[in-house]
């Protein structure tokens, strides 16, 4: 937080409230017209422990819209752009589909659109944000587990939630300073890996 007077959008997932219903995924798919086989957001689910001491854990994943985005650093044509309010988006007219952003992103949130052949990802529904609305996933969440707002405004719901809860981000060691925060983030859920499909 260098310039505290500026607007800095952020997202917060309260995993204590997440029930793994995937409403956010469906809302995202229909809002952004995301093709089959690729995802801008998804919920990773794992099961821990042995019966009867077992529980399912959910990890909703969206783009972290990092403060220091490596995808913007490496984009050879400046198609990756970080807006002053912190949203990182891709200029669809400029992207050449070289996939370098996909190779460098530590979170694997990018994909190549199967027909447009350009890189796409979650950008917190910036078209809705510009119109004064919340992102589609935030509205779709039935338990209100997702908060979205200006982190630099001390009166906003999200900055109060970040201030009064223990929050964590995914892979803080990457130095990208992610702006998607999690309450009750479970390390096993982040690190559990499924074998790649052949």
């Amino acid at each position, binding site marked *: 937080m260098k310039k505290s007077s500026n607007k800095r959008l952020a997202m917060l997932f309260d995993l204590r409230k997440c029930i793994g219903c995937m409403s956010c995924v469906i809302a995202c798919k229909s809002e952004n017209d995301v093709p089959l086989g690729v995802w801008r957001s998804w919920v990773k689910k794992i099961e821990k422990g042995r019966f009867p001491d077992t529980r399912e854990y959910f990890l909703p994943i969206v783009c972290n819209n990092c403060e220091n985005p490596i995808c913007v650093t490496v984009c050879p044509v400046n198609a990756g752009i970080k807006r002053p309010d912190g949203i990182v988006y891709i200029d669809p007219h400029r992207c*050449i589909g070289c996939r370098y952003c996909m*190779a460098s992103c530590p979170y694997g949130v990018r994909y190549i659109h199967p027909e447009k052949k350009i890189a796409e990802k979650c950008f917190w529904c910036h078209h809705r944000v510009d119109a004064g609305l919340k992102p589609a996933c935030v509205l779709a969440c039935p338990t209100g587990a997702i908060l979205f707002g200006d982190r630099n405004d001390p009166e906003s719901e999200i900055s109060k939630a970040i201030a009064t809860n223990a929050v964590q981000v995914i892979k803080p060691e*990457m130095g990208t300073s992610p702006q998607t925060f999690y309450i009750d983030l479970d390390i096993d859920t982040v690190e559990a890996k499924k074998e790649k499909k052949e």
Partner: protein
Amino acid sequence: MESQVLYNTFQQEAFGIFIAIYFYLTGLSAGSFILSTLAYGFGMEKFKPIGRIGVVLATVLLVIAPLFLLFHIGMPLRAWHLFTYLNLSSPITWGSFLLILYPINCLIYAYFMFTEKNKLTKIFAFIGLPLAILVHGYTGFILAFGKARALWNTALMPILFLASAIVSGIALMILVYSIKERFFSKSKSINRDLVFSMGKLLAWAIVFDLFLVGCDLIVLSISHADAQAVAHLILFGKFSFLFLLVENFLGKIVPLFLLLIPRFRTLTTVIIASILVIIGIFFMRYVVVLGGEFIPLI
């Protein structure tokens, strides 16, 4: 903790086989160019016969290599964006200029070499040398900037790529020189001393390359969790066959013995060694590019 993934998505492959081929071809090109400057830049007279082969190979391979980039990118008709929307922090932007400057320099260098203007040849050899190093070195930076992939994200990557470029360049040169002399020259005989001294160069380049690969592996296997996972992948996992057997045993250790032990040293063994090296380095590119992104990120 005992845990099982119930649901997760699969990420698309970022860099595929085309990028591996591209790295391989620029490596061969840079290696050939560096070898051709031994005679025309540094004045080592005994390497003079390979100077011309070197510059022709360097130019031809570097004209073919960027075609694989065009196959790789989704929007090849937008490739001109690389020259109009510059991002100086991106290695691909550095590369798009190097890929223009280096072949132009190769052509000028070749022109002066074939018209036997020795002084000008020497000047363009020394302009071309850093360009050749950069045109392959930058590809190492491309991978090193992939900060979440432990196999790529090492400062050793550019120098590792350069070492393997020189190894593969020398091997290609031995092969092409032998074929040319045997079948397309007037005398139909190969200059054995030249082939053996190139073989000796090749052997020392392989030693250096093996040293770098060893350094990389040792650090990977005790570094952070992702690095250990990828070290396990290339030593015992899916890529171990290609990495250990094809790349390092057949592609480096066997050629090293063929080249260094005097009893084995004949024209045939030097040529066999260079064929093995050329194949081995291809699988080095393959393992680095595809092995590096094999483990899912999240």
